[in-house]
């Protein structure tokens, strides 16, 4: 899932200071699961904004709505009427959702309420961690199912570097993922595989190659 975190309230309030009627739009997918942009968070943000603006003598009207997904046109169609009536839209989705909203409603000002952080998951209640670096060419079969691209601070493919100590990275509060990769490969009897030099990665398949696309011709609907 995509993990995102709400921006500080003051920043959001600042971004909408010139608007008097806003649509606060939640998303029922990833950001609901990571407790940052679902129906509940929409409600809290709306209440906070109204209170804050009332104190500042410039009341704001909030409209609340949460979609199944913001990253799909058909769900965005549902809010066409709501959108007409507001000055701006605060999207509480990830960066994908924000852009779909902006593209679907080109004459509306759209504001992101979240900072999109990573592709990851909850490792325990209240703690989400990055797992995938979205490099475009998965190598998890070579590293025991543990990703160095996303989880090594230096995305080293032939690790661990000299900064690994007691399972910790030289970078503060980061686990050394190569420590985990080695332990796992050793336990699985696959050390030989790690002795092979992993060659330079083809980063053109990652973001370095420019924005990426994926297509499935068999499901495309011809004009």
């Amino acid at each position, binding site marked *: 899932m995509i993990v995102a975190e709400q921006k500080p309230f003051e920043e959001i309030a600042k971004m909408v200071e010139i608007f008097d009627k806003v649509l606060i739009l939640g998303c029922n997918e990833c950001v609901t699961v990571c407790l940052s942009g679902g129906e509940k968070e929409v409600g809290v943000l709306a209440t906070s904004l109204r209170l804050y603006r009332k104190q500042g003598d410039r009341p704001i009207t909030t409209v609340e709505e949460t979609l199944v997904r913001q990253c799909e046109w058909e769900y965005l169609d549902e809010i066409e009427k709501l959108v007409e009536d507001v000055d701006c839209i605060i999207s509480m989705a990830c960066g994908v959702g924000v852009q779909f909203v902006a593209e679907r409603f080109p004459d509306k000002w759209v504001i992101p309420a979240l900072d999109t952080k990573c592709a990851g998951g909850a490792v325990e209640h209240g703690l989400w961690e990055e797992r995938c670096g979205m490099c475009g060419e998965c190598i998890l079969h070579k590293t025991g199912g543990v990703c160095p691209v996303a989880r090594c601070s230096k995305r080293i493919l032939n690790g661990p570097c*000299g900064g690994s100590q007691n399972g910790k990275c030289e970078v503060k509060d980061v686990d050394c993922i190569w420590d985990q990769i080695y332990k796992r490969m050793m336990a699985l009897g696959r050390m030989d595989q790690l002795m092979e030099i992993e060659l330079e990665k083809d980063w053109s398949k990652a973001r370095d190659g420019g924005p990426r696309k994926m297509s499935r011709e068999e499901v495309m609907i011809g004009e």
Partner: protein
Amino acid sequence: MSENKSRLQTLFEQGEFVVTGEIGPPKSASGAGIREHAKHLSGYCDATNLTDNQTAIVRLSSIASGVHVLQAGGEPIVQMTCRDRNRIAIQSDLLGAYSLGIKNLLCLSGDHQSFGNHPTSANVFDVDSLQLIRMVKRMRDEKVFACGEEIKKDEPRFFIGAVANPFADPFEVRVYRMEKKINAGAQFFQTQIIFDLERFDRFMELARERGLHERSYIMAGVMPVKSAKVAGYMKKFVSGMAVPDDMIERLKKAEDQQAEAVEICVEQIKYLKNVKGVKGVHIMAVGWEEIVPTIVEKAGLLPRPQVPGLAQVAG
């Protein structure tokens, strides 16, 4: 082509116990200090490392620093990290460095930028240190760029170095990684600063078991630690370094901590010189370069050897 060999490589091949030093380039646009240090180390060190923006702090470039060392009559070992350049910039800089007379290259990952004075910068890590070593070797031996395209003439012919940290974890993996670096093309190693001699012994034992001491020149890294305060600081803040408490205690108790620091370093060098498979010592006295001649002398490493056909140069 032996005439292309670096002085450093020649000394190793002659079976000399090699001594190298290290100069941390300044945070300014003057090479005067580097040249001064290089002259100061002349006759005491066979070659000198020039660090590449160490601890991710912006400094005069390691290649330019290497040229200053050359101008001062010294033998530079230029450090190259993977943190700040992609494979295009690295190869370009390698061509440039070699064209300016640099012949020794030390390949490293590089400290993470979060340690330095630009923690909000992007990091590159397009290639890692293993891939960098292999790239430099292929440029030299196969005359190709990383992409496979032929280098039609004047390929860079570096003597390739790498680092090994016997004090990082997991312990066993350190020797495997060293072997991997040799397989990639590393010809000599400089280790992380050694304080824990016992652990280093175990490391070398594993390295010898795998024959790594016969496939590469291993230099033991040492550092004179000026005071108990500095030792305590290093223990706390420098990553990948094991500073034993008894060394800190010994410094603390000493009447003259600097003299004691020299004494400790000399003892370590004498010990390391006798560890089977250790072919030299790398003295990292960053910030205290002026003490290096004293240490080299007291450790009984003088006079430094000559290379036939080459003028007496050092630094």
